[in-house]
């Protein structure tokens, strides 16, 4: 590693952004790309479910960031900003493929699991929730989780990825997806409910096997 590259490791994202803005410093930009490319790629891949298309999104995202950096004034974190750009590119690509047609697909509903008085009718069995942090994430469970995320309708998947994977604020997500904060929260909740239902089925199969 060159001295210049080693020095870059010591700088915050904000400092690197300032160097790019003020000096058009390519090495600082390369360091920012290196820091954020894995998570941007993960977001893109789960949205479009195809490595080549995900790469195109990552390329366009960082190229767009490079071009727009002179206007970037640090109201947001650099990481949040590039994730929002990537989410927009991914949704545009999905719309082009006519995968997003404006009609939300139905998601797992809990409506039938409560009695009219609002108490459980179907008991949510299983202790797996308590030991989740200690669970080894083997290939089978990892693949099941990824499949569950990829099964979510596009707009729910986008909200889940931006909030639970990338940690964006509700404001940022609502602005990115051009919707309201209550709509973002509602989609996030339903996405989590669907993932819980999928995982509950997985653990029932495992424990019943």
């Amino acid at each position, binding site marked *: 590693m060159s001295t210049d590259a080693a020095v870059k490791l010591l700088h915050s994202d904000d400092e690197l952004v300032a160097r790019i803005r003020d000096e058009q410093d390519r090495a600082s930009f390369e360091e920012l790309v290196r820091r954020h490319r894995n998570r941007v790629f993960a977001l893109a891949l789960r949205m479009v479910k195809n490595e080549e298309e995900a790469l195109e999104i990552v*390329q366009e995202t960082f190229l767009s960031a490079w071009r727009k950096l002179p206007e970037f004034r640090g109201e947001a974190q650099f990481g949040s900003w590039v994730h929002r750009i990537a989410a927009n590119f991914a949704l545009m690509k999905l719309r082009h493929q006519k995968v997003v047609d404006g009609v939300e697909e139905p998601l797992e509903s809990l409506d039938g699991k409560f009695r009219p008085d609002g108490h459980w009718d179907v008991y949510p069995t299983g202790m797996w929730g308590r030991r989740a942090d200690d669970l080894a994430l083997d290939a089978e469970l990892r693949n099941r*989780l990824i499949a569950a995320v990829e099964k979510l309708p596009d707009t729910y998947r986008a909200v889940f990825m931006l909030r639970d994977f990338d940690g964006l604020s509700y404001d940022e997500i609502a602005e990115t997806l051009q919707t309201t904060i209550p709509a973002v929260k509602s989609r996030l909740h339903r996405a989590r409910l669907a993932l819980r239902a999928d995982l*509950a089925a997985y653990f029932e199969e495992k424990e019943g096997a």
Partner: protein
Amino acid sequence: MSHCGSHSKVNCKHCVDLLVDYLEGQLPPEQEKALDEHFMGCPPCLDFLDQYRASSRLSQRALEMEIPAVLADKLDEFLSKHCK
């Protein structure tokens, strides 16, 4: 048959409906207290809460990945060519 022994002001469905705000501490204090009391007296809701939280955390772990080396090289090549 319900296993809910809670006598709080909210029922199980209310608790589930409010989980997003509850987990982020965004409920009004009185409502948050009502949910706390409900969870203490309702094992099914407590199990559900654990599962709901676990589903998000396990998914986050499963989604972590590195961009494959061959794609990282293509990305570098693309940016070298286009970022002028």
